């Protein structure tokens, strides 16, 4: 028996001529949480895809529980006890919780071909209970909040008796409470002697649950450290190569007159009687727990959902939301929260993904390819997008760079007045996050009104001028961002 669950060394991976991993080493012991940090595009996801067999390295050795494995593939990895909770959670929305857990290894019932649902449901319930979660295993996963998609994947790993669970940015789409719950679950997995590989851009989480941390920078292995022996500054310097302040000290922007106003906006069972206003140059944060109606609220403004009641005014003129294109023409921009589902055109290159909005606005019948390239180049430089070229498909960008592209497409619209950002820095690294904040400040300086929905407390606190707190579909409080603390804010979220 070896001490290591996983040990890889000298891993090299190339895409085209681009070396995304350059002789990287990594190992994992039982009962530890080994974190991987690095900027967007550093190669974190690629490394864990190699460990989980989804990607083949060009060279390097992989040992799993002391055994050298040559041709690792996803199936073999699972058999060897490696489970992955991917960045973009992969569960089947229409199947029930139990069905998802048992997917691929259904338990037969006495009647041939028929699945033993009762048994599966009972088992699922037991596994979930061991994680301290009580949900009905019979409901379709699609109807549950996001965190349960991860829970389902964890339960699946437990059911397979995995020794190793890999998490790729599990908290990127989670709210506060959910993140806390997940941390709890990970601790309990650790106690069972499992090895956890954990990727996150939230360094706080790493200090909370990590034992060791490996830093990657541009595919280069920068070193592995005991979490107890390093601090945030050290990690950030290793990752980014320069100083970055975790708590972004934003520049103040003079705030002008009222630009955007919502009065009594309601939608049955989702949003109730919400009123607020945003002034020129103001960043209006919207906080609250997951499921408090934040995304629904901005969907109403953007014309995705139809409001039952309420009025919206832009520069004093009445605006009745109809469809997204109507909203866009009225100067409203929205970067939606779930980029894969709502924003990315898979199979299309970054140029097409960048210019989609501006083309709609200009109503060009014939494309101006040169212009499109120029605009894309501008975004690449402005947002520091790491890409191998114009024709790179968006799904081949790293997660954070995908986010920059789907955000950048809105920045080309210079006549926009209101910007809605729903979780703008989801999956974005610390350095790039500053970049996005700078972009938001720049927009504020131009006198735009900015609405920022965020589950990230430091983000809300450092960026917002005022914070509207959503609770159960209502905007219960609008707080001036003065002398606010995370605690105070959280108390308001929960309502105690």
């Amino acid at each position, binding site marked *: 028996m070896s001490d290591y669950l996983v040990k890889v060394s000298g891993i090299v991976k190339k*895409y*085209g001529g681009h070396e995304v991993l350059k002789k990287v080493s990594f190992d994992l012991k039982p009962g530890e949480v080994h974190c991987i940090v690095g900027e967007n595009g550093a190669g974190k996801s690629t490394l864990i895809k190699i460990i989980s067999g989804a990607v*083949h390295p060009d060279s390097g050795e992989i040992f799993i529980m002391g055994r050298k494995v040559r041709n690792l593939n996803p199936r073999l990895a699972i058999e060897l006890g490696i489970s992955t909770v991917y960045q973009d959670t992969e569960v089947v929305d229409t199947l029930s919780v139990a069905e998802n857990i048992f997917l691929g290894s259904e338990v037969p019932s006495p009647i041939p071909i028929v699945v033993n649902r009762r048994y599966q449901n009972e088992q699922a319930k037991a596994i979930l209970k061991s994680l301290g979660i009580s949900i009905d295993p019979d409901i379709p996963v699609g109807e549950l909040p996001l965190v349960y998609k991860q829970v389902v994947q964890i339960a699946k790993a437990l059911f397979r008796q995995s020794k190793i669970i890999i998490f790729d940015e599990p908290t990127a789409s989670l709210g506060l409470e959910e993140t806390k719950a997940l941390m709890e679950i990970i601790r309990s997995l650790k106690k069972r002697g499992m090895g956890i590989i954990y990727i996150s851009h939230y360094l706080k989480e790493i200090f909370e649950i990590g034992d060791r941390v490996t830093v990657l920078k*541009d595919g280069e292995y920068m070193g592995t450290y005991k979490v107890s022996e390093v601090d945030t500054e050290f990690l950030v310097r290793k990752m*980014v*190569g*320069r100083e970055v302040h975790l708590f972004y000290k934003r520049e103040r922007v003079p705030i002008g007159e009222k630009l955007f106003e919502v009065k009594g906006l309601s939608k049955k069972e989702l949003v109730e009687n919400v009123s607020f206003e945003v002034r020129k140059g103001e960043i209006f944060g919207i906080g609250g727990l997951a499921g408090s109606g934040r995304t629904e609220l901005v969907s109403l403004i953007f014309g*995705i959902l139809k409001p039952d009641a309420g009025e919206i005014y832009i520069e004093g003129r009445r605006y009745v939301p109809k*469809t*997204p*294109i109507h909203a*866009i023409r009225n100067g409203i921009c*929205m970067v*939606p929260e779930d980029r894969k*589902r*709502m*924003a*990315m*055109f*898979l*199979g*299309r290159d970054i140029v*097409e993904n960048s210019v*989609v*909005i501006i*083309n*709609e*606005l200009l*109503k*060009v*019948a*014939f*494309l101006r*390819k040169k212009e499109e390239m120029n605009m894309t*180049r501008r975004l*690449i*430089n402005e947002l*520091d*997008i*790491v*890409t*191998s*070229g*114009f*024709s*790179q498909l968006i799904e081949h960008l790293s997660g954070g760079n995908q986010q920059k592209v789907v955000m950048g*497409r809105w920045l080309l619209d210079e006549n926009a007045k209101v910007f809605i950002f729903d979780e703008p820095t989801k999956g974005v690294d610390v*350095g790039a996050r500053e*970049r996005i904040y700078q972009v938001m400040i720049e927009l504020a300086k131009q006198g735009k009104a900015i609405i920022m929905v965020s589950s990230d407390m430091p983000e809300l606190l450092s960026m917002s001028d005022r914070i509207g707190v959503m609770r159960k579909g209502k905007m219960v409080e609008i707080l001036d961002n003065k002398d606010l603390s995370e605690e105070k804010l959280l108390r308001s979220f929960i309502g105690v």
Partner: protein
Amino acid sequence: MEGREKVVIEKSKRPFYSTQWFFLLVAEASLAIITGSINPRFFTLNNMVNILDQISVLGILASGMTLIILTGEIDISIGTNLGLVACVSAMLIKSEVPTFWIVMVALGLAVLNSMLVGISTIAFKAPSFIVSLGFLSVFRGTAFAITKGVFQTIYGKFETLGLTRLWGWFPLSFLIGLVIYIIVDFLLRFTRLGRHIYAVGSNSLAAFYSGISIAKTKLLVFFINGLLIGLASMILLSKIGAAQPTTGSGMELKAIGAVVIGGTALTGGRGNILGTFLGVLLMGIISNSLNMLRINPYFQEVVFGIFIIIALGVSVFSAYFKKG
């Protein structure tokens, strides 16, 4: 920002030998060489021109089908749509209606039929496969009803479109087909509608969030598809000089096959017209080779099917290979 190397800004191209069209070209060339070495008549100008002539109708249909599939839909009624239009046109020709009106009716009817499929698909939020399956019967049934099953011959009339040879040898119908490929290629690559087609097929929710109208895009595509079916129908009628309700049936499968062999994803959002062109060409070469090699006619369909499956396999495999 300092520190990070600036981006490589050039169109990085995949090496040519790993592209889909290269696989297809190799397949086509090898098949041609094999057939040609057994039967040298294969390489005569006459035979080459024949192949082009034979694939012009399929090419036009496959061009429309490419658009439909790119948006993530499918239309399996195009063959019977073509048959119905051919029957109606033949009957009009027989009753000496002026050519202008025949063309108008043919195009109009084909568009109407195709739009019916499109509108029903969108209105009922139903899979277009099932909707067009229903219309497939409706069109064929209508053709049977109006012709009462009688063969409609128009020998000697309406020959220009299908039988004209430019400079004495180049088929006009193939030239029309080429023009269609070029137009569709232009549409896909250089117009906003082309972008809409890819966007809707790639991720319709994201398209909606970006302000693109899904229904409008799909309806336009069904409209274009209708026009192309009308055109194809007239060319076919002109070539064979007769129509019956079963004219064109089976063409839908060949068209879908050509599109998929050409590398267009059935799920939509990926593919191009060059692939379709090569897919159609492959079908033409296979059919022609089977004749040249004097394969037993009863057996030809089987061999043809096997070739298609092989081509599909290679094509899918090369796509898989590409992903690495």
